[in-house]
């Protein structure tokens, strides 16, 4: 009960930010919230189901372009744009998901990467998408609106993950992650569940892309299907704690904060330190911050060494 109260307070505090913060803070906030959503969406497929996608940028890009085409070319309202982007992403998840989800491990990761790059290249050749030049969406100066929208999206995504963690569906996903063949013979309809996880992941990622598109107003294939987005979302989710409800959110907030603080100094050093943080994190806390919290409480600093001992050659 206390936990829920605490969380509600956090959400309320976050929601109040636009009232007290300046323009810059709100912009950082939107970025952080959208990233957290994308990390959370990845968490459904990568953290719970164990299918580490390196191509969720495909869904982000589809959400971006769906919204942009709806608003810039078809002059439809924002909500319809978001819906279109989400629909495209979910459709893609179903059509491409079925064959791709038959792959495992590295192969799955690379196939998703290839998918994203391929979609990006295809879009760059479509007239309605503005080809490689991109599209310009209608301008609106209401940063607070984007902020609240992004916050609402993050809450929705997190509530979905919470539901997953408590549901039979979630148990099925975890079983798939732990041992897919055993899960199958025990009656888990792995094909259906994997595609469902992919669809949920695609949905939230696409809407984040759509909000981002309207906010920054100008989009192009390189930015919308940015491949580095994938590694960043994976790192945020894994750094925070894959397969947990709040891990990816916390990991995402922490890393965004770290990165932005460092970047306000020298940008090269920031990137360098960021890379170093990742390397150290994988060595000493491979199961993320969430597990670090639990582990530290139980073992103290020895937790870090335990991880090394468990995973070294």
């Amino acid at each position, binding site marked *: 009960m206390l936990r829920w109260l605490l969380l509600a307070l956090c959400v309320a505090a976050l929601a109040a930010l636009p009232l007290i913060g300046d323009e810059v803070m709100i912009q950082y906030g939107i970025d952080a919230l959208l990233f957290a959503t994308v990390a959370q969406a990845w968490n459904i497929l990568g953290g719970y189901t164990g299918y580490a996608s390196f191509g969720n940028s495909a869904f982000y890009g589809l959400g971006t372009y769906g919204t942009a085409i709806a608003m810039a070319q078809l002059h439809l309202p924002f909500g319809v744009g978001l819906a279109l982007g989400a629909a495209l992403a979910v459709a893609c998840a179903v059509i491409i998901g079925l064959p*791709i989800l038959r*792959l495992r*491990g590295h192969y799955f990761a690379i196939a998703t990467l290839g998918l994203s790059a391929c979609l990006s290249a295809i879009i760059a050749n479509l007239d309605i998408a503005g080809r490689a030049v991109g599209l310009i969406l209608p301008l609106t100066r209401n940063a607070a609106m984007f902020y609240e929208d992004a916050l609402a999206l993050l809450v929705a995504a997190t509530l979905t993950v919470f539901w997953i963690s408590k549901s039979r569906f979630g148990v099925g996903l975890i079983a798939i992650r732990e041992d897919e063949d055993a899960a199958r013979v025990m009656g888990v309809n792995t094909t259906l569940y994997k595609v469902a996880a992919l669809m949920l992941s695609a949905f939230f990622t696409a809407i984040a892309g759509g909000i981002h598109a309207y906010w920054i107003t100008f989009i192009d294939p390189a930015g919308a299907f940015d491949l580095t987005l994938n*590694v960043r979302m*994976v*790192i945020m989710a894994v750094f925070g704690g894959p397969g947990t409800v709040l891990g990816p959110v916390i990991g995402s907030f922490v890393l965004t904060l770290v990165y932005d603080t460092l970047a306000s100094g020298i940008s090269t*050093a920031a990137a*360098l330190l960021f890379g170093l943080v990742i390397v150290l994190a994988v060595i000493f806390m*491979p199961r993320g911050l969430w597990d670090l919290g639990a582990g530290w409480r139980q073992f103290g600093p020895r937790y870090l060494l335990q991880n090394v001992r468990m*995973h070294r050659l």
Partner: protein
Amino acid sequence: MLFAQLLVNGILLGGLYGLMALGMALVWGVLNIVNLAHGALIMLGGYCTYFLFKGAGIDPFAALPLAMLAMFAVGYLLQRFVLNLVIRSAQLNTLLITFGLEVVLTYLAQLAFSADFRTINPSYAGANISVFGVTIPLVRLGAFAAALVLAAALWILLERTRLGRAIRATAQNLVAARLYGVNPAQLYAVTFGIGAALAGAAGGLYGMVSQVTPYIGASLTAKSFVITIMGGLENPFGIVLGGLVIGIAEALAAIYLGPTFTDAISFGLLVVILVLRPARSLGAA
């Protein structure tokens, strides 16, 4: 005639692509590490060769062995003291740590070498030979030849030397190899070092046919991925074949479909191949 020229261009470039992927395939096949920093190693090899050429006046082709030695050392140390620490972790974690290394190496290079474009321009850089009306730049021909030589050398190493046998044994069964006296930490580090050395050579050659900047790593890693998947992990020549396929596909696509389609082609091919035959191996076919 245009078609023949394109074909030759594609083949020459493809050989280099194959060499690029060779190091990644070796590490993937033996250590089960998908090295996202592979492109950064290529980049470092390029810089190494560049400075040997510019600073010490050594002919780039002659500088390659030195660059390879340097990159071997870098790779050995990386594996021995960083990657060996996480090797029994989930596959995802090795992907992430190599990504982190990629970022670190890229920005270290930016700090050390600046973002300027560097090209390795030996005196014979512009020379061509003409065969049946097809123009073949000497440097590209040399790069192609070097790539084939190194692929063959790798094959010989793996098939005909004690070290190669130890590497192959470890790839198949670490526990059994240990029982036969293989020191895994050492062997893994040596294997990664060889992969880095091959990447370094590819980088030096790349610097002769294109430019070196700190940022070339990412796309070269991606390209090496595609080629490794296509060529399979069985056989160095499968990788070279994969490289040739990509090289030719790119050259043809660039003209007939437009330059914006090359990425779509190679990644589209990748997805199709993965879905149709996940463990496809051109070398074993």
